[in-house]
Each structure stands twice: as structure tokens, then as C-alpha cells.
């Protein structure tokens, strides 16, 4: 084999701490290497052309680029060598940047290490074989999990592009957190006025199938061809019949059911429609509170329903959907502030979360949009907001910034001063994080035009004195302790991963970080992709985010799906397992370990049993390879010979 080696300087990123010239010189000594050079920016246009030129000129049969991480540029260079007529798998990369030049400044040690890594790559390349992918058709339907504003945006964009959309939402209505908000920063638009039409659109699109009160049960398959099981939870109301007239709700005698939509500031009936603009607008029974289920009596709703939609015998239903791509948009949950004992640990009714205050402000909320204290229904005069509750706090395991709360408390303070001009608003903060367009101006307005008092310092304790709350904090700018007597305290409770995010990730085989937020493929360059082909992310499930960013990601994810579906078929990855029938002894141990069911047994004409890999199902993990006793099954491009060749260099 004639091998060419290109050692990248990456400007000074590599050359600064690795003698790339020396690495190239040494490479000439390795078996089969006929050309080696060092180049300033190999991935640049001229750099790629240089590789192509040398392939032709030197008649190269394989290429090694020693540069950055293959996770970054392997696809770039594979395409480059392909353009010069080589098979794209006759290429190897040695990572001498992330794993060498950036982690140590010891130039000699780095150079030696880079040489060995190049040597390993060359050794492996000598065993490489051309591989060819096959094509499988794409199922051009998309599944979107979670119907908050991000999921809704993605669904509408996909639907507009002509794709069939399956939208799965675990709550009875779509809309997510945005449906619970009153107004939205930084323009103070009414949240339901801007979200409402989009929600209605969803219900009217013919190519959108909405499964509300549903969750994903299992996922199998791979990009282009996923099979998904969806559990539709029993609502005890036949939604095909229910018209959402609300008759049942008005007559239901069980009035103490929890009302999560109002963040538990009010109660709901056992049969309920979460809010007037709900989509779908259908009733559902909470069986823990329904007298029919708990006491075996009542039945009022069934008697009263004009369309006979009530069905007490309803069971959960499993439906299967086949799709080619998945967008995950499961959003976030609010930090539970009851861990803050010093703030009352959830015991004080007038110490509330940010989302509870949104409900209080909202005209559809528990007090009809009048600001009142939950304890006694009186109008508050002094309102204190506390930033960073459950954020930027290592002691409660939430060291990150939630990103939206600085803005939403500014918004809530402005709205408070609007509703109650005689009220006083105080904000305890550590830093103000308002980096969006017109965001800082918004926070300044709260202070300059609306007279909101910003106090720089954290709050140590909140306690009742009489029927008011005393907020004891610090003003670190003055270096003193301060006290504010308040009628209402709003905690800017932070953003955390939504409940069950981890389990869903495991079903989808995508990664999540230690806090449960889903991992994007690259923090800058692939922000809506995951490491699993065909699965995309949108909105706050990936990390705290406001509405503009969630919507942008919803659209971005939709665009990614459209790009994927623009082709009729996708090329399969040929890095799959392959059985050598001559050495396979038919023990079928490989079938037992394959996590994807990609291996089956077949009987040859002579009656012997052999394993056979279904290339389109194999994901290339190599478990079978490590398991097979006679090593008959080999993972292409990571065969035993190839890996041992790399190791041999290091044992020499």
C-alpha cells in the first residue's frame, strides 16, 4: 500500500506544542509510507486540494491526517479523499490536537506522542479495506415528543414542509410552560395571544397526528426507520366523541382535585379540561379523585354528557407509529424550592414560585388576574423577588444559571407595578443576566421607569412576623444586612430537566448530562443534533432557554429533519459486523449479545448452522466481535487485526 501522511499545524494550535515537521519526517520511516508533509491548515480548501493533488501525483492508496479530533473533521477528509478517487475508508486520522497539543506544553513529550499516534494510524490503515454503503429508503414521517412551544414550532414547520407529523404530549393539553405564562419578556406580549393561534394550527393540520395524555413506551430501529410504541393513557372520556362543552366539569361534585395547570394555587374538578384554550379541548377524569372510582358512586358526568363520551372502563392503549426521524422537545420542570429550609421549606403560603406568580398574574388564573396573596386573598403592597433559587447553588446540586429567571422577575416586577401602582417591588439578585436583544434595556426599564428596587445580595432567611413575611438579606454593595417586610415573596425558581428525562433518553439512546439535560452533538456546531443519527433536540430539554431560543431550535430541528428527508434513501454505515462462514462454528453466542437483534442464524445446504448479520440493522457496536470464540464475526473497520496492529506499535 502507498500511504501519504499529512501532519496538520492548525496554525499554532498544534505547531505551538508539537514539532509537526519532525512528526512528518519520522513518518517517512514507517512501513508503506511514501509521502509525508506538514501543512498549516489541512481542513482549509487549499489543504484539502493539497491532499487530493498528492493522492494523484504520488498514486497514494491510503491517507493519514494527523490533526484534530476525528469527531470534528473525519467526514470532511473522507469526502476529500473520495473526490480524489480513493475509497473513503482508506483514510485514518490521528488526534494530535485535543489529545496532544492542547493538554500539555511539553513539546518533546508531545512530539514523541504525536509520532506514535501517527504510527498507530499508519499501522491500522495497512489493514483497511474499501467499504461500500448500501441505501435504505427513508420513512418520511417525523415523531415529535413534547408539545411545548419548541415542539409546536417544530411540528408546524415540518407540517408546512409537507411531512407527516406524530406529536406526543404527556399532558392533556399541548402548550407546555408557555401556556401557563401571563405575558412574555422582553415585549410584554400576552403569552396565550401569541401561542394560542399556533396551538389551534396544530389541531387543524391534517398531516399532524396528536396524541395527548400519551408517552413514548419504547423505540427501536434506526435513522430513517424507527418503530415507536406510544402509550395513550386512559382518560375515561372518549375523545372522539367529547366536544369539550364542559357540562360534566360544571356538574362534577368532586371539587378538590389538584390543578397542576394553576400550579396548585386552586383546585379542579375530578373531571376537568385544564384551561379554556386547551388543545385538544377534551375532558379527562382524575381517577384518584373521582367518586365513581374511589367510592363506587356518583356517575353524574356519565348521566349528563350529551354525547355519551364517558367511559369508566377505558384502558391504556398502545399504538405503534413508524417514523424516519425524532425530535425531542420535552422541555423543563421547575426546581422544587421546598429544599430551602431557610425560606420556609414550602410551609409559607405567601412564599411562591415564579410560575405560581405567572398564574396569579394571568387573567385565566386562580384570581382572575388580580394580584392577591394566596394566604388570605388580600392585595399585597410589598412584593419581594429573590433571584437564583435553585440555580447557581452548589449546595442544592444546581450550580448552573437558569438563564430565564433574571428576565422573568424583571417582567413580573414590571407587571406588578402596572397592576398595582401603589405597590413596592424589591428584587434580591447576585448578577443580572440579560444578554438577549433588548433584554438589558428591559431590565433597566424595570429600574428606571417602574422604580423596582434592585438589591445586590442573597437572602439568608424568610420568616413570618404577624401576617407579613420578613425577608432578611444582605446589600453587599453597602456591606450591610437589610430587611424587607413583604406581603408576598416570589422565588425565581430555576429550571431543571423535566421529570423522566433520563428514562426517555435511555429509550432513545441519546446522552444527557449530570443534571438530566440532553446532550447536543457539538456545543457550537451541532446544537440540535444528538449523537444518535435521526434524533434531534429542541427547546429547554437541552438546557435552560427562553421562548425565542426554544422557537429557534424548534425551527432548526425541523430544518434538519427536512434536510434528512430531502433524500429518498440514506446510505447505511458500512462499519458493520460481517461473518466469515468458513470459521463460524454456529455457536450463536453472537445472537445472544447483540443489543439490536441484528444477527440471525441460517442453515447452509450442508446442514451446518451459521450466523448472519443484517447489515441494515447492525449499529456497529462490536459486542459480537468481542464475544465470538473463533473470532469469525468481525466488525468492519475495527477488526481484530486492525486494533492489534495499533497495539503492536505500542508494544514494540
Amino acid at each position, binding site marked *: 500500500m502507498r500511504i501519504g501522511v499529512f501532519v496538520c499545524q492548525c496554525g499554532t494550535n498544534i505547531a505551538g506544542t508539537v514539532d509537526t515537521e519532525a512528526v512528518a519526517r519520522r513518518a517517512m520511516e514507517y512501513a508503506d509510507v511514501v509521502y509525508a508533509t506538514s501543512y498549516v491548515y489541512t481542513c482549509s480548501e487549499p489543504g484539502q486540494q493539497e491532499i487530493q493533488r498528492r493522492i494523484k501525483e504520488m498514486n497514494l492508496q491510503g491517507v493519514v491526517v494527523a490533526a484534530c479530533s476525528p469527531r470534528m473533521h473525519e467526514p470532511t477528509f473522507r469526502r476529500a479523499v473520495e473526490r480524489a478517487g480513493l475509497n473513503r475508508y482508506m483514510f485514518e486520522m490521528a488526534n494530535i490536537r485535543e489529545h496532544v497539543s492542547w493538554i500539555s506544553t511539553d513539546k518533546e513529550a508531545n512530539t514523541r506522542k504525536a509520532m506514535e499516534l501517527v504510527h498507530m494510524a499508519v499501522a491500522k490503515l495497512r489493514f483497511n479495506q474499501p467499504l461500500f454503503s448500501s441505501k435504505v429508503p427513508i420513512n418520511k414521517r417525523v415523531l415529535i415528543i413534547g408539545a411545548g412551544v419548541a415542539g409546536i414550532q417544530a411540528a408546524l414547520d415540518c407540517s408546512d414542509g409537507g411531512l407527516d407529523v406524530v406529536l406526543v404530549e404527556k399532558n392533556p393539553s399541548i402548550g407546555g410552560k408557555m401556556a401557563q405564562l401571563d405575558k412574555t419578556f422582553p415585549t410584554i406580549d400576552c403569552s396565550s395571544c401569541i401561542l394560542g393561534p399556533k396551538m389551534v394550527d396544530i389541531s387543524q393540520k391534517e398531516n399532524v397526528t396528536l396524541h395527548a395524555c400519551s408517552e413514548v413506551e419504547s423505540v427501536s430501529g434506526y435513522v430513517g426507520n424507527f418503530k415507536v410504541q406510544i402509550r395513550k393513557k386512559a382518560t375515561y372520556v372518549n375523545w372522539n366523541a367529547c366536544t369539550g362543552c364542559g357540562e360534566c366539569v360544571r356538574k362534577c361534585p368532586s371539587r378538590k382535585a389538584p390543578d397542576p395547570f394553576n400550579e396548585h394555587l386552586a383546585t379542579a374538578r375530578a373531571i376537568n379540561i385544564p384551561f379554556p384554550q386547551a388543545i385538544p379541548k377534551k375532558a379527562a377524569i382524575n381517577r384518584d379523585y373521582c367518586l365513581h372510582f374511589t367510592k363506587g358512586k356518583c356517575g353524574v358526568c356519565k348521566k349528563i354528557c350529551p354525547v355519551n363520551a364517558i367511559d369508566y372502563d377505558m384502558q391504556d392503549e398502545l399504538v405503534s407509529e413508524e417514523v424516519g426521524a425524532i425530535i425531542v422537545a420535552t422541555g423543563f420542570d421547575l426546581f422544587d424550592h421546598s429544599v430551602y*429550609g431557610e425560606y420556609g421549606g414550602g410551609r409559607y403560603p405567601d412564599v411562591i414560585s415564579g410560575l405560581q406568580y405567572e398564574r396569579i398574574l394571568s387573567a385565566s388564573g386562580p384570581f382572575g388576574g388580580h394580584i392577591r396573596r394566596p394566604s388570605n386573598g388580600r392585595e399585597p403592597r410589598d412584593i419581594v423577588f429573590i433571584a437564583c433559587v435553585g440555580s447557581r447553588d452548589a449546595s442544592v446540586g444546581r450550580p448552573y444559571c437558569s438563564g430565564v429567571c433574571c428576565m422573568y422577575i424583571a417582567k413580573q416586577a414590571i407587571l406588578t407595578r402596572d397592576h398595582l401602582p401603589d405597590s413596592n417591588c424589591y428584587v434580591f439578585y447576585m448578577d443580572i443576566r440579560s444578554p438577549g436583544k433588548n433584554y438589558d434595556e428591559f431590565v433597566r426599564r424595570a429600574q428606571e421607569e417602574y422604580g423596582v428596587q434592585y438589591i445586590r445580595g442573597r437572602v439568608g432567611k424568610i*420568616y*413570618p*412576623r*404577624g401576617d407579613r413575611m420578613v425577608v432578611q438579606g444582605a446589600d453587599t454593595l453597602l456591606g450591610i444586612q437589610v430587611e424587607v417586610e413583604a406581603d408576598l415573596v416570589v422565588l425565581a425558581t430555576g429550571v431543571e430537566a423535566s421529570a423522566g428525562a433520563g428514562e426517555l433518553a435511555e429509550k432513545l439512546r441519546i446522552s444527557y448530562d449530570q443534571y438530566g439535560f440532553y446532550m447536543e452533538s457539538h456545543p457550537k456546531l451541532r446544537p440540535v443534533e444528538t449523537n444518535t443519527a435521526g434524533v434531534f433536540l429542541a427547546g429547554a430539554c437541552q438546557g435552560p432557554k427562553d421562548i425565542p431560543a426554544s422557537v429557534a431550535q424548534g425551527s432548526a430541528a425541523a430544518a434538519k429533519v427536512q434536510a434528512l428527508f430531502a433524500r429518498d434513501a440514506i446510505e447505511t454505515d458500512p462499519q458493520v459486523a460481517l461473518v466469515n462462514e468458513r470459521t463460524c462454528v454456529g455457536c450463536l453466542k453472537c445472537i445472544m449479545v447483540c443489543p439490536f437483534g441484528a444477527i440471525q442464524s441460517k442453515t447452509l445446504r450442508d446442514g451446518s448452522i451459521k450466523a448472519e448479520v443484517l447489515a441494515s440493522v447492525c449499529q456497529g457496536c462490536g459486542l459480537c466481535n468481542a464475544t465470538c470464540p473463533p473470532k469469525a464475526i468481525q466488525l468492519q473497520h475495527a477488526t481484530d487485526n486492525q486494533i492489534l496492529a495499533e497495539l503492536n506499535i505500542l508494544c514494540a
Partner: protein
Amino acid sequence: MPVELKPKKTTVAYYQGCSLEQMASEFDVSTRVVCDALGVELVEIPDWSCCGSTPAHSYDPLLSAALSGRNLAIAEQQGFDVVMTPCPGCLKALKGALKVFKDPNKREAFLEILQMPFQGNIQAVSNLQLYFETIGTEAIRNRVTKPLTSLSIVPYYGCLISRPPDFMQFDDPENPISMDRILEALGASVPEFPFKTECCGATYGVTRNEIVGKLTGRILDMANRVGAQAIAVSCPLCQQNLDLRQAQVNRYWRRDFHMPVLYISQFMGLAFGVEPESLGIDKLFVEADSLLDILSREGERDQSVGGKMA
């Protein structure tokens, strides 16, 4: 009334500490009475010495550890695996000594200074921890003969009993509830008290008593506001600041507090039917006569009701 013994007797080493020997003698007396009533045998650590308190600690935690180490080592020699002390200051010192002993970087110096055999197989607990975790509120409730039904009492825990949480490993650092539950078991009503753990001024009684005046005043004021008739404490220093210095507080704030401050063990004793004198109630500076009156009136009413029933 004859004291009933629990069938299984618990025996623990008892470290009373200097305060309980003098200024807080009623805490000592009442603790002994109550433990006896609950079937706990307290064995005073023979020839115990001072733990060094805050002064030793601020000098060097190692000195503090060695001073407390002596008491732990004696208790261990006597075969105890638990030492109970009612004084949170002493408890902090004892636990500090165990922590130093368990720190491989400090153990050698500790043992060198201590010069006594010590294995570290002993645990230090507060009286509250003993009542709440070992004995349990159920057993306490069962022992009550004169419930404090008509009394509204707030528990004041002070700053040390549950803090810092990973060091003390007992109750909640912000809203401890052990004393609340014990008082409830005694029949008292226990209003929500937001200043359970606010610092009372601690050792500054002597050096800066105006600080104590201010801080203790806040606590008394809050107790007053939530309608308490008395405060229950479990720390000799807290008791001293709230009780002995109440007159100073009144001068500082120009107020007229008259709030009896009793040790939890005194309340327990009263509810168990022990005579007030045997609990050192007469040693309080802010007299508790009003409380005793209420209780005895209550007792009479109970009896008359009981009489009718019989």
C-alpha cells in the same frame, strides 16, 4: 409517685460539663430526674474535666480536641459506647475531638497531646437526640401523667444543636423539630416559631452584653408575638441569655418581657408529675409561678372530670 422503669434499661455515660455544675444546675438535676423516669441510667464520667469550650476552640481546635479527648477516653475505659451531654457547646467539643481523632493527619498529634489510650469507639449525643431518637416520642407520651395541655410553648434550639448539619447529624438545620415533637407529646401546644435557631448572643454575655441584649430581645419578642407563654430550651447558654439576662434585655429595648424560660427536661419532668422543686424550677430568674398555677388549675379540672367519669 413511684418511678416506673422501662423493662430494658439504657445506660449511657453522662458528661454534664461545667455550666451544669453551677449556673445551670437545674438542667443537670432535671435531666437526671427525667432520664431516670424514662429508664435511662446516666453514669457520670468519673473525674471529668472541662471541654475548654469556645476559648479552647478559638485557640486551636487541637487543644479543644485533646481536652475533650480526656473525657471521651475515660468514658471509653469504663466500657461505654455512648456519651450524652445536655450542653451543645460540650457536644460540639466532644464531636470535634472524635473528628480530629478520625483525621489521619491529626490523629498522631492528638494522641501525643492526650497521652491516654483511646480507640475512638464512642459516640457523643445530645440529650435531645437521646430523647428523640433512642427513647422516642411515643415512650415519652406514655410516661406523661400531667399533660401540659393548657400551655403554649415555643422551642428555642439555639444555633448549635443541628448545625452544621453534616457535623451534628441530628435534626434539620433550619427547622429542627425534635423539641416540637417532644413538647407536643407532653400535651403542650407548640406555635410555629421562626427563630428556633437564631443565635442568642452565645458567649458574648460576658464581653459584649449589649449584643446579647439586642439578639435575645428579638427572640423574646418573636416568642411573644406567636403567643407563647414560655420558652423551652436545651442549652445552658441560651437559657442564661434568655432568662438571667431578660432584665438586661428589658432595659436595652425598654420592654417588659416576663417570659419563663425552662429547660426541656423541666417541662418533661412537670408533665411526668415530678414536683417542681425536684426539677430546680425555683432556680429560674424569671419565675415560672404563673405556669405552675395554670398547670395546677388544669390538673384540678382534669381530676374533677376524671372523678365524674368514675
